[in-house]
C-alpha cells in the first residue's frame, strides 16, 4: 500500500480489490449461478419458507462461499418469534 493511501486512510489497494472481486466472481462462475439468479433463488426461498414460519425478510443474507475445495450456499434466515409480536 502506498504512503498516500496509508496517510489519508484511503480505500484498499487496487490489487486487493482485484483479488476480492476475482474470488467472488469465481465462486459464481464455478457453480454457474450468477448473482442475478441468486436474487431469484432468494425470492423463491423466502416464499417457500414463509409458508411454514414467519421470517424477518430484511435480515436475510444468502451468499456463495468456498472453502476446502467445496462450494456452499450459505443462507442466514432470521425467524420472527411469535412471542415478540
Amino acid at each position, binding site marked *: *500500500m*502506498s*504512503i*498516500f*493511501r496509508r496517510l489519508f486512510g484511503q480505500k484498499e*489497494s*487496487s*490489487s*486487493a480489490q*482485484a*483479488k476480492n*472481486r*476475482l*474470488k467472488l*466472481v*469465481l465462486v459464481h*462462475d*464455478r457453480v454457474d449461478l450468477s448473482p442475478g439468479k441468486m436474487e431469484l433463488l432468494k425470492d423463491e426461498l423466502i416464499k417457500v419458507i414463509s409458508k411454514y414460519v414467519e421470517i424477518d425478510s430484511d435480515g436475510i443474507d444468502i451468499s456463495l462461499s468456498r472453502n476446502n*475445495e467445496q462450494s456452499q450456499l450459505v443462507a442466514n434466515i432470521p425467524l420472527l418469534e411469535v412471542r415478540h409480536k
Partner: protein
Amino acid sequence: MSATVITITSGKGGVGKTTTTANLSAALAAQGKKVVAIDADIGLRNLDVVMGLENRIVYDLVDVVEGTCRLRQAMIKDKRLQDLYLIPAAQSRDKTSVTPGDMIELTNQMRDEFDYILIDSPAGIEQGFKNAVAPADRVLVVTTPEVSAVRDADRIIGLIEAEEKGPGDLVVNRLRMDMVRRGDMLDTSDVIDILAINLIGVVPDDENIIVSTNQGRPVVMSNGSTAGQAFRNIASRLNGQNVPFIELKEESSFIKKISNFFRA
C-alpha cells in the same frame, strides 16, 4: 525416445501463449532436447513470426492432416539450434479443418522421434482449444496478473480437468514488481491462492520480449534478459530439474521511485 506432448493454453487471448511456446521450445532445444513446436491456431498463425521462421513456410498443419504433403515436408528446421522444428498453422482455413483425433494421430507419428512436442493453443474454449489439448500429456496454463486473464484461466483449468488432462501447471506472465509493491497488481501468491494449481514459472514484464518479437528471435536465444532466464528456468523444470524461482526486482531508478511516490 518417447516425446512428452505439452500444450500451452490460456483461455484469454494476448496473455503470451505464443511467446511462451516459442521460448520454451527454443530453451528445451538449447538444453539438448529434440523439439517440435506446432501452431494449432489455424486461421491466425503467429508462432512462425515469433520464432522468425515465416519466410520458410511451404506446407502447414492442415496440409499434413489432409494428406497434401508428407509430415516431414511441413516441418521447418530452425537453423539456429541443433534440434528445433516448427509445424506452422494454416492461415486461410479455420479450426474445423482439424479434429482432436487428427492431432492425436499427428503427434503419435512424431513421438518416437522427439523429446518434446509443444502445441500452441488458440485462445477460446471451442474446437481450436479442444484440438490443442486432445494429445497433451501435460498442459501449461498461461495467465497475466489481471482479473480477466485469471478468470479465464480458472475456466480453462476446469475444462482441462474435464478432459482428464490434470489441473495443469501455471505460468504467470508479465508480472511487474513495481506495481505489485505499490499494491496495484496481483502478486503471484494471490494468483496461486485463487487458482490453486502448481506454479511452474513467473515471467516478468520485459521490454526485451517486444524487441525479440520484432526481430523474430526468441529471448532465450540471447543472454541478459530476465524474461529469457525465466523461460529457461521453466524449460529446466519441465525437464524435471528443481530450479529455484528467480527473485524479481523492480527496476530501481531514482526517477521511477519519485514518480511512483507521486502516482499513488
